[in-house]
């Protein structure tokens, strides 16, 4: 490997939006106040399943409020998430509905001069509901005698009948599992369950919509994809896309919660179009908590192996309770299969997945898109298998992992490519060393018991592949070199907090050899950017950055062409380097003194001579989605009297390829650990089966998350980045974000097993569960 000399890539720098964020200058959707703006509120179903028989808004309107019901919004069935190609997209949503299928589903909305007046108007809308039986269990919902939550939905343009409330099914077979299990000498099987976690992003979902004089609209909203919001709004409201402008604005956290166009967006637009005035809706926390949650899972996993540990066959059966809407269940099931088979080589495999409608909050992507669920099952069962085999579980993993040169299909069966960089072995060995894995001792006595557990995982960097597949995945950018040598880049890619756009600025700075301070992150909207699918799937740096790298190289060619006219040497004889002192990129002819000019001077000369602006625009679809691997070693303390589990130490290993922002990459690992610990130990949403409401009533008080006081001691959280480079990534980089959480729950549960000898297969593992299990164990003798 050649030694690289970067001035921006891999260097510790402060994030460009840092000062604005710490001094209260950064603006979020909820901070916008437009002249003549009305405040909107949404009327939500108090029942988990009902029909609206009558709705009367006259009293609300008499108060001066603008009201809309399902009768006054476009009668269009849509999917709020449109990254799958249109003919493979399941659609079952309406802007407002007369058939709410979960508590909190929107049936009407109002807009008024003040929030108080809107609230008052909301209370004056009279709705007569017919309550219908509701379903809260996926297995129950699939029984033929259960009520049908949908008669039909749309699959592309086609009307599709829904049977037994099954929203999507997927069966994938490779090889012959019967043969595989027959050839196996040891077979292990277990059932796993994971919870319906709430995203709990700090900013609740919000929208501001301004109707324009030309019949168009301008929209600011909490989203991970301004272009998909634009396209959906154009489709629903029949507005030409050039008149729908979605502005990029800072988002107060996402974690998947705004991966789709959120339900509040078209409601805000419908109100604004009717009122002919700007309308703002900011969800309350209680409303936000009934908008979306993480996909829960039931997974039954069976693995067969030879006595030497070689895996022979696997069978995974999955049931996902998706709640009231199909946000993207078909791709989810494909991805769950992909996460599984891309972890370990399975010569014979079968995956059977079902996504089932119930009357709960609609589930959607949340950090990992099915991956934390699958990895929890796989990495727990690998530990069980290792114990039966009498093998160190790290050796078992090393023997079977899918690595360099092998095919993987993390994003599902239609997204296959070859692994070209892999730090799995380095991480497993280094992590074992740093965590004291080999030296760990079992102490199965005393009140406080310690245990060390590990798990590995990965996430793809985007969803690119050589073949187009069913998922849209490409990005685009505009790069423009200004007349003083500074550079603007315009991308629809979002920074959801991780610092993705800082990484992108470094890619520009590195390619053009200009100082990082000279690269600006432009404020943009859907009019001034080319399409970018979505900031999701850990694709920001690899896909968005990859596209930007390509466009920057095009701008650079133009720069060198202009420079060659000035320096009178052919473009390919020119070199470019950074001059830190001058604060400029310098172009020169190697070995010829005096033939030297700054990037800024070239751009200025081009302007004066009327040669034109140095700029480029293009798109790129990556033909890979390289796995960003990781491994986590986590130590916990279990209090056998209270059942409380405290995470006390963590070694977080990551193979993100070339790290672009070291500080921010570490931040991704810490954040992933934090949310992963919550996933394993605390976070879930439970329902009151009588009322269909969330038991926590939408309050943070009863949706517990870890606080600063409950994380491990700072010096006991270590990070390790592998020495890998991804040949297909911008400057060798891969993604990082979602991977950081995928193995955490399994590592925690493995650590609990190490501490008290009890294997939990359901998360979160609460103190009540621990005490109950300890009692059962004692009673068994």
């Amino acid at each position, binding site marked *: 490997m050649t030694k690289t000399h970067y001035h921006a890539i891999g260097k510790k720098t402060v994030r460009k939006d840092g000062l604005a964020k710490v*001094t209260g200058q950064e603006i979020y959707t909820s901070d916008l106040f437009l002249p003549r703006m009305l405040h909107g509120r949404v009327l939500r179903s108090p029942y988990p399943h009902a029909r609206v028989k009558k709705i009367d808004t006259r009293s609300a309107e008499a108060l001066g409020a603008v009201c809309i019901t399902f009768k006054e919004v476009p009668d269009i069935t849509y999917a709020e998430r449109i990254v799958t190609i249109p003919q493979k997209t399941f659609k079952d949503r309406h802007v407002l509905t007369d058939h709410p299928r979960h508590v909190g589903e929107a049936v009407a909305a109002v807009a008024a001069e003040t929030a108080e007046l809107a609230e008052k108007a909301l209370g004056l809308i009279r709705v007569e509901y017919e309550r219908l039986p509701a379903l809260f269990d996926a297995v129950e919902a699939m029984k033929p005698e259960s009520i049908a939550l949908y008669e039909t939905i749309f699959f592309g343009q086609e009307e599709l009948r829904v049977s037994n409330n099954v929203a999507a099914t997927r069966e994938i077979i490779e090889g012959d599992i019967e043969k595989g299990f027959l050839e196996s000498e040891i077979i292990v099987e277990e059932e796993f369950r994971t919870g319906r976690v709430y995203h709990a992003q700090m*900013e609740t979902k919000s929208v501001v919509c301004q109707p324009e004089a030309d019949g168009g609209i301008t929209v600011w909203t909490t989203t991970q994809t301004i272009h998909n919001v634009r396209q959906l709004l154009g489709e629903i409201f029949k507005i030409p896309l050039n008149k729908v402008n979605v502005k990029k604005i800072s988002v107060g956290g996402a974690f998947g919660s705004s991966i789709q166009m959120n339900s509040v967006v078209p409601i805000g637009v419908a109100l604004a179009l009717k009122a002919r005035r700007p309308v703002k809706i900011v969800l309350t926390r209680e409303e936000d908590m009934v908008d979306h949650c993480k996909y829960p899972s039931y997974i039954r996993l069976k693995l067969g192996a030879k006595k030497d540990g070689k895996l022979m066959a696997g069978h995974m059966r999955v049931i996902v309770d998706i709640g009231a809407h199909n946000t993207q269940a078909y791709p989810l099931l494909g991805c769950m299969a992909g996460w599984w088979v891309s972890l370990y080589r399975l010569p014979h495999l079968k995956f059977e997945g079902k996504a089932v409608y119930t009357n709960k909050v609609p589930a959607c992507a949340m950090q990992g898109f099915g991956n934390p669920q699958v990895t929890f099952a796989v990495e727990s069962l690998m530990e069980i298998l290792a114990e039966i085999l009498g093998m160190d579980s790290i050796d078992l993993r090393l023997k079977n992992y899918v690595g360099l040169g092998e095919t993987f299909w993390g994003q599902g069966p239609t997204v296959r490519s070859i692994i070209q960089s892999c730090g799995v072995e380095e991480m497993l060995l280094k992590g074992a060393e740093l965590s004291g894995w080999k030296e760990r001792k079992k102490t199965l006595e005393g009140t406080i018991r310690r245990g060390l557990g590990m798990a590995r995982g990965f996430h793809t960097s985007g969803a690119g592949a050589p073949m187009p597949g069913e998922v849209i995945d490409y990005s685009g950018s505009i790069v423009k070199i200004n007349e003083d040598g500074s550079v603007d880049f315009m991308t629809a890619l979002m920074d959801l907090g991780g610092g993705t756009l800082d990484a992108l600025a470094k890619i520009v700075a590195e390619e053009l050899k200009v100082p990082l301070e000279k690269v600006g992150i432009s404020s943009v909207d859907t009019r001034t950017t080319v399409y970018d699918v979505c900031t999701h799937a850990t694709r920001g740096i690899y896909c968005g950055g990859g596209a930007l790298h390509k466009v920057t190289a095009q701008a650079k060619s133009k720069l060198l062409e202009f420079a060659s006219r000035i320096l009178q040497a052919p473009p390919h004889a020119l070199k470019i380097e950074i001059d830190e002192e001058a604060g400029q990129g310098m172009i020169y002819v190697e070995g010829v003194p005096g033939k030297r000019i700054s990037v800024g001077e070239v751009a200025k000369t081009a302007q004066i001579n009327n040669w034109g602006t140095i700029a480029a625009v293009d798109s790129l679809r990556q033909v890979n989605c390289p796995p960003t691997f990781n491994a986590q070693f986590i130590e916990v303390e279990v209090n056998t009297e209270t059942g409380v589990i405290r995470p006390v130490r963590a070694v977080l290993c990551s193979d993100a390829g070339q790290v672009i922002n070291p500080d921010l990459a570490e*931040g991704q690992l810490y954040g992933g650990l934090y949310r992963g610990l919550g996933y394993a130990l605390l976070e879930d949403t439970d329902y009151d089966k009588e009322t269909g409401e969330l038991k926590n009533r939408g309050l943070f008080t009863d949706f517990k998350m870890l606080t600063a006081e409950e994380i491990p001691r700072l010096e006991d959280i270590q990070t390790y980045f592998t020495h890998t480079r991804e040949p297909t990534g911008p400057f060798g980089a891969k993604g990082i974000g979602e991977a950081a959480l995928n193995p955490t729950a399994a590592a925690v549960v493995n650590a609990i097993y190490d501490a008290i000898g009890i294997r939990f297969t359901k998360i979160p593992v609460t103190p009540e569960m621990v005490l109950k299990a300890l009692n059962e164990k004692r009673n068994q003798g």
Partner: protein
Amino acid sequence: MSKTKLYPLKININGVWKKAKVAPEESLLKVLREKLGHTEVKEGCGKGDCGACAVLLNGKPVNACLTLALQADQQKVVTVKGIGTPDRPHPLQESFVKRGAIQCGFCTAGMLVSAKNLLDENPNPSRDEIKKAISGNLCRCTGYKKIIEAIEEAAQKIRQTIYDKR
């Protein structure tokens, strides 16, 4: 229209006296954001659970969502903008940027208010004291580690400045 009687409010925000007409039930958060233009104070839950709206009221941290605006009549309020500005950032703000203690930034304003109060009262806090001081501020992004480190660094810097002045 609404018949609620409005009362005059006079309040000192970040050193500047401001006036507004407010209803008795209006929260300080609502008045700061909607009537006085201080949108740097964020609403995360409106129930006192998350700390995003923390401000200093006469030097003490309060959740603005749980404080009635009229309770702050004739009093001094400091928001994150009063802690420091882009031209003259407070050491806490500098270290938050330098240590990567911010991601989405939505909890940052409240977090800095709690941290400022801690360092005003205790210039040499232990890690446990820092954790306790910000335990009422939820952050979903960072996992808190870099925030705690940033507060520690700022504390050290402030102590050094005081020492240098002596």
